[in-house]
């Protein structure tokens, strides 16, 4: 299994597009946090919680970029037919998808960690230089937001992998991965509410997990951080299982 994971890691790091996506995912929250630090009026009123809140929203863009990366990483194997070379070298197909999931999990966690902490450091340093007090207040949620963000990014990487194994087409998979939270879940919520089913937004897994990054819920339509991530994680792993079963049955 270690050989397969090493092989998948080489595949990921030897395509330039992947690095471009990683660099944008890392830089984007930092650029936004820095620009806010530079241009915010009355910087002395800013606090570390403002930067944490800002990153928790902005970094979702990085999550979606990484989701696209993992979708492309798998589906490009079908478009370039390297999946046939891969499966000829490793006939147990589940091992390939498992190795992709392991590489995706570790790499995503590292990239999101770098993106989060670099953005936080740059935003707070700039505001601090402009006279703001950047010491962490008692009610800060720095670690909670960080863990929720990394958790979301990892789960979305599984989500992309599962969808990629089912759809086997790069543009279609990326579109579904991106539009699922932005469009699909909203449409389902709207349709059900028109049909008289209320509070259904609570059960839209992708949106709940995104909301859980910044929100600490006290009931209502939000599941709450651990529950939202567990729920979305279960959905994502379900897709991976379905994708693995289908992939095993289909011709490569």
């Amino acid at each position, binding site marked *: 299994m270690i*050989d397969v994971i090493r092989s*998948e890691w080489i595949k990921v790091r030897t395509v330039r*597009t992947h690095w471009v996506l990683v660099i944008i995912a890392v830089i984007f929250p930092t650029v936004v946090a820095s620009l806010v630090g530079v241009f915010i009026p009355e910087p002395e009123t800013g606090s570390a919680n403002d930067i944490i809140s800002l990153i928790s929203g902005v970094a979702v863009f990085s999550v979606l970029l990484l989701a696209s990366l993992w979708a492309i990483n798998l589906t*490009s194997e079908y478009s370039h*037919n390297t999946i046939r*070379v891969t499966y000829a070298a490793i006939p147990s197909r589940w091992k390939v998808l498992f190795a992709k999931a392991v590489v995706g999990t570790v790499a995503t966690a590292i990239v999101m960690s770098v993106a989060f902490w670099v953005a936080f450091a740059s935003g707070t340093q700039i505001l601090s230089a402009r006279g703001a007090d950047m010491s962490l207040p008692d009610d800060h949620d720095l670690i909670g937001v960080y863990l929720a963000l990394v958790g979301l990014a990892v789960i979305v990487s599984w989500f992309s992998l599962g969808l990629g194994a089912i759809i086997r087409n790069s543009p279609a998979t990326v579109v579904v991965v991106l539009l699922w939270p932005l469009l699909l879940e909203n449409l389902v919520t709207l349709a059900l509410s028109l049909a008289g089913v209320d509070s259904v937004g609570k059960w839209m897994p992708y949106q709940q997990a995104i909301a859980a990054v910044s929100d600490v819920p006290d009931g209502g339509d939000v599941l709450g951080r651990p529950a939202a991530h567990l729920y979305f994680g279960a959905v994502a792993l379900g897709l991976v299982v379905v994708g693995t079963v289908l992939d095993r*049955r289909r*011709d490569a």
Partner: protein
Amino acid sequence: MIEVTALTKRFGKHTAVDDLSFTVTPGRVTGFLGPNGSGKSTTMRCMVGLDHADNGSVLFSGRPYRALRRPIHEVGLLLDAGFVHPARSGRNHLRWLAASNGIPRARVEEVLGLVGLSDVGGRRVKNYSLGMKQRLGLAAALLGDPATVILDEPANGLDPEGIRWIRDMLRFLASEGRAVLVSSHQLSEMSLMAQDLVVIGRGHLIDQCTVDEFVRRNTTTRVRVRSPQVGEIARQVRAAGASVEYVGDSAVSDTVIVSGMAIVEIGELAAEAGAVLHELAELVESLEDAFLSVTAADQEYRSGGAS
């Protein structure tokens, strides 16, 4: 040793491979021939489990492909030179493949050198010519130093030097005791490359034998005879049961083509008749002639007349 037994693959109602059985023996290059759409590539994909066969079995040295723990060490495969990510370098393509089967990186450099791509190994594959991709594909097939090599159209896109190189390479691999199965549309090349043949049409086996035997079985021996006394020779030959066809107008021609009689017998007949021979030559038919004659009924796609 490859043993294919009763292999069957259907796509919906279409049977692409139909109860196909053949063997590929070590130490020999076996050509895999068939018209377009005859099921060669499907057979090769089924052999290594990429396509799921509906029936039958394929054994590599007695074991199914899925049972091979590190298959690259046992079976080298080149299904299509285009099965490479264009944004990855040739060297990195081989590196991930090597890593998947626990093959050291040094072996990657060895096979790159073997196929003559050491200098361009760092270049991205999208900048490779088709011939370079074929060489990269062959390097991948040889990565694990396998006992069995399966190559689908390896000479496609190669220049004459490359074609000679691959022919010599395959013969060398076979001389080392490996079982080599190679498909190609270049029949003249196949006749130089392969010792054995598996010929299929519409998914079923037409013949399996040596190349020489296949040509002998599926062509008629013809002899060209030119003589001032060609009429006398023609009479003698016809009397002996062979058929004669004049080249040009029979009233004036001094040349005939004799079918169904060995060249030695014709020479002896001419001597007995006291005829002077200006030419007595066997017209050797090619693998292409034999192949076209055998697969005429199995051509899925046929071109129209040239006129």
